[in-house]
């Protein structure tokens, strides 16, 4: 019996062992990712059913799913999502490493075009991306593009007074970043420090900032980042939507209205249109102690689009018009170096003309037309051919305070025509692979319109840029890897008269750029992405050929026709945590730029009958930029929440071991919000107190006209409430900016030499949706 007992025990042991082994096998899992066939978006809420085990899962916000506690063996999977074709797949599960990507195709067009799966990113990239939309964009309505984007951490502005502001991404601006108006790269006179982007923020339903070097996808100059200004997708069925916006501001007595309307056709399926117009008027801006003379503005914009889409074909036409007249602070226009020194010593304008809406010289009058045609055609369910053509006409006139009849003539009158053509082929191959091959052509003609009575600052030129690129992405489970390569060739022909002699130049630039990036979902709450990309920027025509007096700035600027292209290598990393109550986003980056072009004071002066002028020359040096941005929010209670965001940038000329001018100083913005009303109500009813802290820029260049201004702290309050009026909605926003009417100067404002920044401003922002 003992033997039997022993053998029984042995049997039990063996059986137990077998069972435990069997038990382990049944802890296998099927992991996968659900993407949209059309646009690569992750699909949240798709249902995955394992027939044999009668268990299932639902995909998360990143499209990922996991079905646990499965044994080894073959399984039949069904994947379902409303309005999409069901996928049936038979898989063989042998190990715990199973991971597969599925792409869902839309079943029928009638269900209303592409479903919006939560918030959809405007661009598919593994780089750090932040978008401004919804309530945040509503709060920014009435501000210029640059000002609006300050709400995104890592984005600041480089401004000239309070009406001209250019966005700065990670310390880069002007021609080192790119702005896309509905997919077309905005081509204006962006080289000038006082040239604001020619775009109406009301065009946008969403503004997206890509913080990585995206030259491969978007072409040269996208070195510091890319800003995408995108309208809402066109409706594909009858669904009329009208939005009315009004913003009023006490400071400058500003008024801004915008109306947009979108609808689809009842008769022709897939046909839709959208129209939008806005107007803005403001007078002299008030600093706490005085009015800034001649700082009004007047703006009139329009845009419209019409589109048709069917299962296979999509076609869209778009037109936008931007027109602005901007007054330039009278006292900022100086005759010579003495004038400049006098006003800097004074620390504020000499004149205080009080309030007026009138705009006199110096002023800018800028108009910008943009027209585009876009089309895509599905060659098969895996291949999609895209075509986009854009035409832009930009006219910039700058008027200076001159004598007599000359006052009616612009001192600078430039006309820039740009044609852009994109042709690319997208593919979403079976499961893991997707990507794009394309060619891109940019053709540009810039002319000085005769009759200014001033020797032109930059020559007339023709430019042609051809680019060829390929991007491929691998998505599997929590991991996405992306890489791309691009080649560009550019030719520039310039012509102008120097001392009555025709001077011509032929220049050419060729460059490869490449990037590699990855995205990894560490856990359902934590994601990490990293992107390493090269970028390049050919020198601008002003950097090559400037020669002479920059009127009003009391500076003589000298270009260098032998400048090389700037080349950069940028590495961006982003860690995101979304834990319900806590949300956190950390971005760290390093950017090495060789042959960085900058304007350097020579220390010499030019003497003329008008007095003396500082002389600046364009030089190149190696530069290193690095820094980090953070933004986070925390929900304390159901009613109380808080947020904080900020950025730190370090930028150095590594050749000369000194600092570049106009690099944003360290800053942070934090605030607390309190939700009023009943908690079950989803409508906004929120009060926010926020505090902006900006440090003094201690890393100053060796030469500056004036030392960096002190740091400052501003308080702002806002109240946001949504009313429901029948089927319509009214959003009411009340804001007070610079609540304590603090006198301050911002280092990144070129007019800090002449005046304090804007004082207190009461704002009312209305949005009526019907």
């Amino acid at each position, binding site marked *: 019996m003992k033997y039997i007992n022993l053998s029984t025990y042995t049997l039990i042991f063996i059986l137990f062992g077998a069972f435990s082994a069997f038990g382990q096998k049944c802890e296998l899992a099927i992991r996968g990712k659900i993407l949209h066939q059309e646009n690569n978006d992750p699909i949240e809420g798709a249902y995955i059913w394992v027939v044999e085990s009668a268990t299932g899962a639902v995909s998360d916000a990143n499209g990922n799913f996991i079905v646990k506690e499965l044994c080894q063996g073959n399984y039949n999977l069904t994947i379902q999502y409303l309005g999409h074709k069901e996928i049936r797949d038979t898989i063989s599960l042998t190990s715990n490493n199973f991971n597969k990507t599925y792409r869902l195709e839309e079943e029928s067009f009638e269900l209303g075009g592409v479903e919006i799966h939560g918030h959809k990113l405007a661009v598919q990239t593994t780089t750090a991306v932040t978008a401004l939309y919804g309530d945040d964009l509503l709060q920014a309505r009435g501000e210029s593009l640059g000002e609006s984007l300050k709400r995104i951490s890592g984005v600041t502005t480089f401004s000239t007074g309070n009406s001209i502001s250019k966005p700065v991404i990670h310390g880069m601006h002007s021609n080192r970043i790119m702005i896309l108006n509905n997919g077309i790269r905005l081509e204006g006179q962006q080289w000038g420090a006082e040239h604001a982007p020619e775009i109406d923020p009301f065009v946008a339903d969403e503004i997206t900032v890509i913080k990585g070097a995206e030259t491969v996808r978007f072409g040269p100059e996208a070195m510091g980042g890319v800003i995408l200004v995108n309208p809402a997708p066109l409706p594909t069925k009858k669904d009329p939507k009208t939005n009315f916006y009004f913003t009023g501001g006490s400071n400058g007595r500003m008024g801004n209205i915008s109306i947009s309307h979108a609808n689809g056709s009842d008769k022709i399926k897939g046909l839709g249109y959208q129209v939008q117009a806005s107007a803005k008027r403001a007078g002299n801006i008030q600093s706490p102690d005085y009015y800034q003379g001649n700082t009004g503005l007047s703006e009139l914009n329009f845009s419209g689009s019409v589109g048709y889409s069917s299962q296979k074909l999509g076609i869209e036409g778009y037109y936008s018009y931007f027109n602005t007249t901007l007054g330039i602070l009278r006292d900022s226009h100086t005759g010579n170096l*003495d004038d400049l020194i006098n006003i800097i010593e004074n620390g504020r*304008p000499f004149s205080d003309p009080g309030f007026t809406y009138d705009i006199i010289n110096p002023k800018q009058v800028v108009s910008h037309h943009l027209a585009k045609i876009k089309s895509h055609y599905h060659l098969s369910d895996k291949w999609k051919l895209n075509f986009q053509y854009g035409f832009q006409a930009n006219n910039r006139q700058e008027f200076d305070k001159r004598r007599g009849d000359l006052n009616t003539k612009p001192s600078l009158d430039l006309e820039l025509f740009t044609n852009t053509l994109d042709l690319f082929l997208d593919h979403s191959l079976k499961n893991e692979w997707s990507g794009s091959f394309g060619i891109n052509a940019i053709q540009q003609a810039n002319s000085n319109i005769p009759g200014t009575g001033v020797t032109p600052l930059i020559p007339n030129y023709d430019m042609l840029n051809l680019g060829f690129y390929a991007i491929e992405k691998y998505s599997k489970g929590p991991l996405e890897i992306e890489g791309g390569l691009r080649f560009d060739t550019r030719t520039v022909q310039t012509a102008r008269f120097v001392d009555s002699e025709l001077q011509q130049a032929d220049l050419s630039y060729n460059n490869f750029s490449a990037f590699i990036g990855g995205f990894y979902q560490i856990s359902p709450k934590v994601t990490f992405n990293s992107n390493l990309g090269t970028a390049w920027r050919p020198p601008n025509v002003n950097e090559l050929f400037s020669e002479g007096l920059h009127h009003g700035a009391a500076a003589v600027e000298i270009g260098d026709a032998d400048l090389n292209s700037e080349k950069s290598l940028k590495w961006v990393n982003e860690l995101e945590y979304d834990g319900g109550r806590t949300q956190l986003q950390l971005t760290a980056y390093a950017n090495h730029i060789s042959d960085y072009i900058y304007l350097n004071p020579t220390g010499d002066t030019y003497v003329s009958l008008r007095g003396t002028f500082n002389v600046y020359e364009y030089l190149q040096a190696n530069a290193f930029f690095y820094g980090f941005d953070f933004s986070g929010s925390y929900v304390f209670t159901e009613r109380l929440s808080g947020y904080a965001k900020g950025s730190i940038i370090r930028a150095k000329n590594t050749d000369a071991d000194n600092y570049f001018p106009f690099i944003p100083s360290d800053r942070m913005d934090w605030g607390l919000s309190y939700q009023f009303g009943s908690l079950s109500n989803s409508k906004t009813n929120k009060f926010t107190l926020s505090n902006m802290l900006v440090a003094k820029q201690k890393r100053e260049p060796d030469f500056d006209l004036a030392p960096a201004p002190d740091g400052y702290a501003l308080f702002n309050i806002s109240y946001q409430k949504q009313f429901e009026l029948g089927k319509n909605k009214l959003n009411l926003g009340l804001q007070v900016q610079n609540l304590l009417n603090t006198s301050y100067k911002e280092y990144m404002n070129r007019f800090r030499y002449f005046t304090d920044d804007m004082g207190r401003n009461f704002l009312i922002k209305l949005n009526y949706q019907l």
Partner: protein
Amino acid sequence: MKLFKNSSLFAAVLFSAVLFSCKSEDPVIENDEEVITDVTLKFTELDDSGNPVGDSFEFLASDPQGVELGTPTIETVTLDKGKTYRLDVLLYNSIANEDITEEVQEESDEHQFFFLGSAFTSNILTISYDDPSGELIGLQNTLTVSSSPGATATEMRVILRHDLDKSYPGANNPNFTNFAQAGGETDLDITFPIEIN
């Protein structure tokens, strides 16, 4: 690249690029109309009753290139001690062949000359506006040389301000050193060396 196999597509691209391309205009020589290239100080001796005596004489400051090429040439002004002169300031643009004096006269409410420098601070010269219209412009002035000057070599700085507040306190004085406080910008800033005989 699959794309290039499709030659008709590529042709379409090239075609549209050619179709829509535009050329820049040929450059045009632009005359700098704003620049003042020649500033002439014209002196006419006055007798005790203010009537002109003898021939007038001129001193020139010129910069034919405008601001582009640096150092202007400035003649030394020679005056006799104890005498009173009428000083006319004449402005000319040799690039656009234009008389700027007239333009300044027409915009008398926006322009004003100031006369500074050691010649006035050490009381070698005294000056007063004497524009025929009665406005304070400084295109015509009365200038008196001290009969016992402390030095024979001195300097006079001639400044033309544009778009200033002419009613700013003190701006009625041709020797107003704080002219910057009255706002506007400088159109001319020339320092003439002066020799007193």
